[in-house]
């Protein structure tokens, strides 16, 4: 039988410290990961923004509006771009739990 040397108190302390550091690092990273992960509602909202924008361009209905859903809200804001009557600045903001998650901007030619 192979005989291994016994661990001293210092060895044990080092082992416990290393384990603690690794576990702390993993916990921190895991917490960060959970925080940064986007909810599925965000992706649904983004898909809807694409449809809303397509409809706005085709229907030429240049109005601000709010679209409320169970898990998210989309705010559509239409305003003249830099004061010009030729272009509209259309902004879509996704809100989840009253928090602004994402905003995207588009310019649209005023064809009225």
């Amino acid at each position, binding site marked *: 039988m192979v005989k*291994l040397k016994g661990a001293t108190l210092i060895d044990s302390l080092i082992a416990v410290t290393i384990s603690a550091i690794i576990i702390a690092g993993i916990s921190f990273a*895991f917490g960060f*990961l959970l925080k*940064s992960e986007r909810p599925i509602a965000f992706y649904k909202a983004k898909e809807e923004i694409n449809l809303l924008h397509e409809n706005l361009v085709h229907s030429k209905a240049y109005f601000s509006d709010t679209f409320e859903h169970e898990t998210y809200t989309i705010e559509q804001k239409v305003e003249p771009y830099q004061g010009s009557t030729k*272009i509209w600045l259309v902004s879509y903001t996704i809100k989840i739990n009253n928090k602004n998650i994402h905003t*995207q901007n*588009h*310019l649209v*030619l005023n064809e009225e």
Partner: protein
Amino acid sequence: MKSIKKIDFNLQASAMVYALFLLTVVSIIIGGLFYLSSLNRKLESTFEIEEILVNNSKSGIVYAQANFLELPTNKNVTIRLFNKGIDSVILTKQNWGAYQIITSQAVHNQKSFTKFVMVGSQSKSDLTNLYLADQGRPLSLSGKTKIEGLCHLPQTGVKRAYISGTSYEGTKLIYGQQKTSEKQLPKINSDLILQINQSSGEQQEWNNEVLNYHVPFDSITVHFISNAPIIIQNQNLSGKIIIESTDSVIISNEAMLKDIIIKSPKIIIENGFRGNIQCLATEIIRIEENVILEYPSVLSLIEIQQKEQKSSIQIAENTQIVGSVFLMSEVPNFRNPISLDISDQSIVNGFVYCNGQTELKGTVNGSIYTQSFYLKTASSAYQNHLLNAQILNNLPKEFIPIPLLEMSDQIKIVQWLN
């Protein structure tokens, strides 16, 4: 007894090593998962940036349309669209035959996304369906002729005529509104003529061995040139290419051409060809039977010197053109005017301008401006007569003609080039 105690002690120590080993393995596995997750986040962020760049490049096109006249030609202009976040675009305006091209490149660090569009302008005068200059002769209609829409006609008006045993079959002479025309056609936008005459790009001698060639619109123009006749046979050419011959260009029905420009005094398009081209000639353009020129094709003839043979555009039977056709002379001679012939069963969907005489036997769906009409039959020749011709008003709103009469600030997209 002593040896048994020693064995117990050794076992405990190896348990700690095992524990550390296990911890290391678990850490590596969990670390790997985190790495995968962060990679996923990184990819997601890359896709998000790409999506923003695509949206910004489209917004850049809109900005360029609205500020078209202020944008310099062939110069890059960098703007920030929203003054926050990723919003830089580089805009360029360049001439391409009778149209113009806007390039919008959205940039962020080393990433970029570019959109190209061909644009034209939509002026109020495009609403006219027929403009016949007032040469003191009325317009005479016979057979199955049908004229729709807004018509600018001579003061002497329009009347029925009996030609080759056929009288006018319609219930009304004009199915639309009538206005009085001037003695001359509305003047051509001189900037457009200058634009058409411009030549640019990297010149190369034409070589028949060039078979497949695509030049993207963010590259330098490839300008093939030859002093001999050029015959385009089975070549597949598209994009930013100009083919120029100082003699003539013949396009066979096997050629596949898209968005390119053909320049020559004489251009002949052979029976059965189908494609999308801009033909810029100075003497003659002959389109043979069964040719289809897709939107937005252009046939342009600008006569720069009088020759024995009449300068003309001849469109044979069963041909379809979707785009713009125009003829003008820089050396007009009323004894030998430039002429446009549109044969039976041929259709021009779009805009036609002839500062000379037009023989219309087919259909123009859109607008036609002409100094006069003429009609040749087996027995005689007539001035300002139409027999079985049609001028219709069914052009879709999306059709954008070349800005021949005036450059309005209503810049519209003719086609997306990528």
